[in-house]
């Protein structure tokens, strides 16, 4: 399979479902409505245990309380060349109680999921809230939300924890073997990781919500060492983590991708080193999702814009005075936030505030129109309700505002990747996630990639290396003059979106089509040391 054929067949699985979600139309597998008191939970004791926490918190004087009882199952298998380097299986169980007392948050957690411990921890959370309330300036105010009694599960076709280990190992070792068949390839390492997050949320507002979320993360890296040149080159898989079961592993074209990766890694040794300057960039979705994540996802977090993350992740250039007026991108640029697209990483039925998830416009015709919000934030920008973006990575972590899936909507006119390249005179096509760095207000960024192709006179004329581009976020998105149409839509994502102190990871997806950005500054990263 040649490169373009791979683009056509390898990266488009699930694109129709993706479009359904990103245009805000609920498909048959979208979030179900709240189903009332008749819902059956997996274990009736969960509700009893939750009520212990809510009662103890109320008795201690909390005006609001919620509890998350959760267990987290993970499995990761690492291989390199012909060997299995590690097999890890983990289970982590516990609960966290969050309260508001004296208008201040308090939180405490424990791994002992027993009634006496739950009551003790609830009391501890209230005590912490009271102790910290002397430093509070304004009481916490929660936007109203409907209470829900509901069960929601990630719809998966094949539970990865039921798939025999030898099948997983065989898949990984066959990837490595295929890579090593390519002349010039020296090493190949591959891994697959699976997460099952099961949590029971209950609040003093009457919600009892049980959810089971699945995520998977299979990948490889090929290395080609050229001792004569004193060089080594790598190429990572174009697979991305997904909110799916083992069906993603079953359907991804591993052998096609790894053969191409081997050839790419070897070809990088002799590829032309890029001439620095201004280029039109054609960004493939396997690359563009990360640029969206860093330059649109993070600056639209309301807690950053308000200064709540100033000490760690940073603030945002999208200050609240820009809401509704700021030209963030060209008129063809539209972003939607959602936690409802089946298959995406941040998707769930209800967030960790107990708010039903939804989709909403964030950038409309290039204008910045909305943030990501939680219940405690909505009123700070005059909104009546939360967009449902509260999340905690684990039972022992405090829930706070985390990024939802944020997608770039496809262009309105029919346009394929081939058509976009054909219309580009002097440019670079970039594929895959590479080096990435952006400042703490999300203005200035630098991105690399996995593979770079010179575009000249509407044609791909060869591979390039040592490529990175630097830009200022609004300038970059205003330079976007073409976005391919929905047939090219693809969803990439990250398992490890980091924020908060103590640091927490959040898994999030970004859907997009190939897009072109005019006259972006490209630097050459080659150094002689």
């Amino acid at each position, binding site marked *: 399979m040649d490169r373009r054929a791979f683009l056509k067949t390898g990266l488009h699985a699930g694109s129709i479902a993706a479009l359904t979600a990103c245009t805000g139309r609920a498909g048959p597998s979208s979030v179900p409505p709240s189903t009332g008191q008749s819902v059956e939970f997996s274990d009736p004791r969960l509700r009893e245990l939750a009520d212990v926490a809510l009662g103890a918190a109320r008795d201690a004087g909390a005006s609001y309380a919620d509890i998350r009882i959760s267990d987290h199952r993970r499995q990761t298998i690492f291989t390199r060349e*012909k*060997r*299995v*380097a*590690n*097999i*890890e*299986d*983990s*289970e*982590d*169980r*516990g609960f966290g109680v969050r309260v508001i007392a004296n208008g201040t*948050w*308090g939180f*405490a*957690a*424990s*791994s002992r999921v027993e009634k006496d411990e739950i009551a003790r921890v609830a009391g501890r959370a209230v005590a912490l809230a009271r*102790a*910290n309330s002397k*430093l*509070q*300036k304004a009481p916490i105010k929660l936007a109203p939300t409907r209470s829900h009694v509901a069960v929601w599960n990630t719809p998966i076709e094949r539970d990865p924890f039921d798939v*025999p*280990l030898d099948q997983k*190992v065989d898949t990984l070792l066959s990837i490595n073997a295929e890579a090593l068949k390519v002349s010039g390839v020296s090493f190949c390492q591959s891994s697959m990781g699976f997460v099952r997050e099961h949590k029971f949320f209950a609040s003093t507002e009457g919600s009892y919500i049980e959810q089971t979320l699945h995520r998977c993360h299979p990948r490889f890296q090929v290395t080609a*060492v050229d*001792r004569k040149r004193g060089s*080594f080159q*790598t190429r990572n898989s174009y697979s991305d983590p997904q909110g799916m079961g083992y069906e993603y592993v079953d359907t991804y074209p591993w052998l096609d991708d790894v053969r191409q990766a081997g050839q790419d890694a070897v070809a990088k040794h002799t590829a032309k080193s890029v001439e620095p300057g201004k280029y039109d960039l054609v960004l493939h979705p396997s690359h563009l999702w990360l640029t969206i994540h860093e330059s649109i996802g993070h600056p639209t977090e309301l807690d950053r814009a308000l*200064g*709540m*993350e*100033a*000490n*760690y992740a*940073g*603030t945002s*250039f999208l200050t609240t005075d820009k809401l509704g007026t700021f030209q963030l991108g060209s008129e063809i640029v539209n972003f939607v936030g959602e936690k409802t697209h089946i298959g995406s990483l941040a998707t769930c039925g209800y967030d960790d505030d107990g708010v039903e998830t939804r989709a909403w416009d964030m950038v409309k015709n290039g204008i910045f129109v909305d943030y990501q919000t939680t219940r405690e934030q909505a009123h700070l920008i005059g909104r009546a309700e939360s967009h449902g973006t509260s999340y905690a990575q684990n039972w*022992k972590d405090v829930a706070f505002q985390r990024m939802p899936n944020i997608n770039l909507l496809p262009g309105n006119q029919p346009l394929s990747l081939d058509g976009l390249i054909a219309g580009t005179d002097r440019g670079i096509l970039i594929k895959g996630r590479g*080096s*990435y*760095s952006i*400042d*703490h*207000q*999300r*203005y*200035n960024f*630098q991105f690399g990639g996995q593979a770079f192709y010179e575009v000249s006179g509407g044609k791909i004329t060869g591979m390039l290396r040592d490529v*990175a581009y630097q830009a200022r976020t609004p300038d970059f998105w205003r330079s976007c003059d073409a976005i391919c149409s929905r047939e090219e839509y693809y969803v990439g994502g990250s398992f490890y979106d980091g924020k908060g*102190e*103590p640091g927490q990871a959040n898994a999030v997806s970004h859907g997009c089509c190939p897009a072109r950005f005019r006259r972006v*500054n490209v*630097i050459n*990263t*080659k*150094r002689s*040391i």
Partner: protein
Amino acid sequence: MHTREQAKAIIDRVLSLSKADEISIRLSGGTTSHLRFARNATSTSGSYQGPSLNIASSFGKRTGSVKVNQFDTDSLKRALRRSEELASLAPEDPEHMPALNRQNYPAVAGFSQKTADHGAEKLADWVNTCIGQAESAGVKAAGYSQTTARYSCVANSRGLFGYHQSSGAYLSETARTDDDTGSGWAATASHRIEDIDAPLISRTAVNKAKLSAKARPIEPGKYVTILEPACVANLIAMAVWFMGKRAADEGRSYFSAAAGGNRIGEKLFDERIHIYSDPADPNVPGSPWGSDGVPQTRRDWIKGGVLENLHVDRYWAKKTGVEPIPQPANLIWKGRRGSVDDLVASTERGILVTSLWYIRPVDRRTLLFTGITRDGVFWIENGKIAHPVQNLRWNESPINVLGNLDAMSASQRVAPRNWRTATAMLPAIRVKEFHFTSRSEAV
């Protein structure tokens, strides 16, 4: 927190229930308390405790690992059977190493009861100090405070047993001017609560914020640059992370020799550079053992500018006929005399950088990294800070930094960005050139 005896009892129970040929165990736990603040008020707080048990069961050369956090007998049995099942299903690992025999671990004084007893409620005292000083100065403060009391154990079916307690205290603050044109940051960490000087941290952050307000843009390029210890720690940690012997021997590292093998013994850096690790250092105590249970010891990494060691796991060490070397327990760079102010005073023209942010590798062949400066960048003219300058993106290699050393201050315990433990002791340094590639208007 489990005592040595309680931890030993859990481990003995696991060992007694095991059916594997060999079993290796890691057990850890403790309490963490934290309190955040922003916009001159508290935001989130928390306190949690939770142990973690990692079991690696082996049959011959087949191994399976399981991690759990429930310790009742049924849960332990289930975890053991799962690890044994995974091991029986796993293919033979040609690089399998038998469990370690009993080891002698160094005595590390990394635990302070006073720190462990400093409960979550007392964190509000530090935060109160920070908010109070910020309000008096008319700036907005955000920050994070944390205390930890932890233990970790390493054990196996060959009789290996180690128990280690550690404590930690951390405070950081970012102060921003009311008009959002200036931002300053300071942080401190120690295993001793009495080392946390909240007024000093707040004062430093507030002063930096005011000094950095209304920064001027300068042209990107190569400049004489003073990197404060927090910057040096980030850069050196990146270099050390990639100082693995196997990658070097396999030809995929800066430390690979052109003719094969690695560059141990080569003088790669300025001869004044001496970087070592020592788990028993009284200022920055580290873990007595590495990730595979191999004892840590005082070890030179770079001495007299010469590459002395690369870290290497047990398998690759055996294959290449050397002793295994864990990744360093801490990072200590033996500095000279003087302070950051002294370096500024002796600089004719150059840039002073407070901290680095969002550091990512760009090219592993040259260890080229990119990142951004943050929270206080200043132009120096004739030995004095002339004015603040806007933040800058940089593309630079720590190899270049270590080769371009011009001067260094005394070493100090440092808590660089992204670290909340006290495991680095380094100087501020002045380098002859540091490559800034574009401007950022971020504050």
